[in-house]
């Protein structure tokens, strides 16, 4: 008789989206745990300390970066690796992370494990990042910098004029500011290659 079935029994027979209630609860909690772990892991890989845990990064690009204004400046605001190289919003971030997982393969293969090998690949790697930034209208730069937040009076004449021109022509940060935090490699491009990055 239906009424005689215990409350628990009834509950256990209830289905949510085809799963038993217990199953659903396990999935739910599991989901939270997984989600938390996933995001924790993603955030963990979004720390500068993680980025430079590979000597490839620590010995090359990181050393160069520590000599630039994005690392050390008057007011102590620091932009770390992910601030420039990883999107802030979730969707773009996950896409970027998935793409970046290819680096694991190259880590194992030792693609850039000596300064010489790194230098040989430098332009190719830089170009990839320049392309990404152009495609997003330098989104990561713009998380902090904005044309309409600039005070032209506080800029040197050369910068003032350049920014005026950039606004007029709809240019984006990376059009001019290539290699600001690393060794400049722009001049290694052939003229043909350079055309791709002309504003």
């Amino acid at each position: 008789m239906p009424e005689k079935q215990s409350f628990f029994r009834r509950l256990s027979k209830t289905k949510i989206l085809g799963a038993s209630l217990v199953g659903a609860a396990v999935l739910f909690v599991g989901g939270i745990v997984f989600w938390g772990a996933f995001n924790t892991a993603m955030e963990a890989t979004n720390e500068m300390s993680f980025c430079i845990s590979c000597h490839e990064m620590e010995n090359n690009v990181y050393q160069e970066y520590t000599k630039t204004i994005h690392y050390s400046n008057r007011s102590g605001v620091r932009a770390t690796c992910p601030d420039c190289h990883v999107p802030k919003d979730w969707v773009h971030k996950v896409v970027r992370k998935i793409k970046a997982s290819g680096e694991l393969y190259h880590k194992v293969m030792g693609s850039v494990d000596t300064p010489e090998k790194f230098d040989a690949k430098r332009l190719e790697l830089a170009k990839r990042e320049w392309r990404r930034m152009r495609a997003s209208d330098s989104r990561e730069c713009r998380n902090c910098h904005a044309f309409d937040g600039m005070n032209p009076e506080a800029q040197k004449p050369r910068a003032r004029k350049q920014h005026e021109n950039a606004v007029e022509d709809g240019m984006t940060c990376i059009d001019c500011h290539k290699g600001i935090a690393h060794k400049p490699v722009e001049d290694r491009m052939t003229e043909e290659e350079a055309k791709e990055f002309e504003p």
Partner: protein
Amino acid sequence: MSQRNAFTLGVAAIALGLIPAAAFAAPDWSKVPEVETVLFYPGQTALEWVMNGPDHGGARSFVKKGDRCADCHAGEQADMGGRMVTGKKAEKQVIPGKRAAIPLKVKAAFDATNLYMRFEFPAGSHADVPFVQGGKMDADNEIKFAMMISPEKANDLQQRAGCWSTCHDDNRDMPSAPDKAKLAAVKGIDTSAGYVTKYSVDSRTALVTSGDVRGSFDKLKPAAELDALLKNGGFMDLLRWKSKGNVSEDGHIAAERVMTGGQGVQFDGKKDGNKWVVTMTRKLASTAPGDVSLEAGKAYTVGFAVHDDHANGRFHHVSVDMHLGLGADGEIKAVKQ
């Protein structure tokens, strides 16, 4: 004595070399306003370097947007000079101890006949040039002072770049300076000194601003077109003072640099304590080839250079382009007498 008689007498006196022209009819400089600019050490930043994007952040704005060098660089010349003089940028032959920049005070006045200018800059100390025997490139002249004037009809690039329009990557001691064989192959300019001098942009069929070898010394226009340059503004007037013997020269730059041929100019300069003072008198109007005929009410692109401390060739200090207004607007406003 009537004014005209006085004038005739004056001209006769100059012609006879009795008194230096500057002493004649020179304005009361204490009444003429002073403009201060800064000459800086340019290293090997030729026109081709300036027009090349990867080398120069301002290239696009200069080439495509029509900006003047001064639009971006006026006021920061001393910092710029510091980058080249130390070899941080665009300089392979560093001269330790050479100054990065020289402040230059300029005064200008004019009357119906002449343009008068007065220049003053601090004397510096000597720095031995390590790659020259004796440490001095031009042992005779401690200082050479030069001024370029761009004709009104000159092309837009020359008007905006000033002196830079004549300075090229294949000039003497520049990165693309040609070897003897290449020099010997080019006809139409004098290369007997073993190098290519400055040349105007209009004297060449093309400008080579990128690649490993830049410059256009061998892309000379045909002779007939070169002759026409002096009439249609494709040149720079060049006036120069040399400290040894207080010598004045009046030349021009078109297919190459020529230090003679102008109507003449009278400089008078000397070291006065810890500064150099150079005055200049030049007739406004001229029909001599390679001279700019100056007119009241107009402004001209000019540039200045000091070969400091026995320097030669490219090892000078230069101004960015400036506008000299004769009763017209400009960074330097010549006052009417």
